[in-house]
């Protein structure tokens, strides 16, 4: 069975650099429309961490890339 995972992005730590989006091969992250307190549009995880169909593998490539350690990664 393919590994499943999910991530949590701390939107106040995130500066919206978008590097995680490039890193994610599954397209599970995007930039949010909202502004955070610092004035950035943070990244947001598109998937539902409960959903069985989610594509996120918990590969952590996003977190490895994130300059602001804004992403925590979990694997089932």
């Amino acid at each position, binding site marked *: 069975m393919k590994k499943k995972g*999910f991530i949590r992005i701390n939107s106040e730590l995130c*500066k919206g*650099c978008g590097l995680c989006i490039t890193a994610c091969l599954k397209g599970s992250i995007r930039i949010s429309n909202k502004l955070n307190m610092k004035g950035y549009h943070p990244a947001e995880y598109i998937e539902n961490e409960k959903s069985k169909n989610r594509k996120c593998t918990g590969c952590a490539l996003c*977190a490895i890339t994130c300059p602001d350690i804004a992403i*925590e990664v979990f694997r089932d």
Partner: protein
Amino acid sequence: MAKQVFKRPDAIKENVFHYCPGCGHSIIHRLVAEVIDELGIRDKTVGVPPAGCAVLAYNYINVDMGEAPHGRAIAVATGIKRARPELIVFTYQGDGDIAAIGTAETIHAANRGERLSVIFVNNGVYGMTGGQMAPTTLLGQTTTTTPGGRLPLRDGFPLDLSQMLAVANGSVYIERTAVTSPKNIIKAKKAIKKAFQVQMDDLGFALVEVLSQCPTNWKLSPVEACRRVEEEVMQNYPLGIIKDTTHKGD
């Protein structure tokens, strides 16, 4: 049960990074912290931050730290290491710090084979002071002091410090890495770990050059900045091991 597979390293403090969005510095900080965690040396490590964007590295990396004047991190680190050889001492320096004002200190420490692990962050500009030319700036690159682009006759050529340090007899491990992609980041971490290991094994001077992005002063988005590193910067500064004599005599 979901199990956390990626979290903040222990050796990173809780503070929010002051770096610009997409800046490579905080990635590299994290790698250093991860390596310190993995080697279990947090309680005997001392770091020397530079004057540069990373001047506040002590707000993030949770080890003893002593500040150096701009360019003198390696000299300060030499003093610490020689005074207490049991400590693991690293410096963290930008290209202006290590390759311009600090050139002499860097070369002679390498030549003496000081037992130091040096993290050399090459982002091709003076970030902290607002984007002036660095020794590593590419030809033609526009900075605030090369308004029409870097001209070799006026401004000199991109300096390859790592290659020069390879000439020094006391350097044993020099590798150039980057933090533009997960793959490169993983390699960079391996290199940083090796640089610490070389010190723990008392082999000589170890340096990891990390090509880093400065989206702010390059006036590019973080993603474009990473692409620029991969497409342009690496042409001039190819990644890879530049010197490794750690296995000599095996």
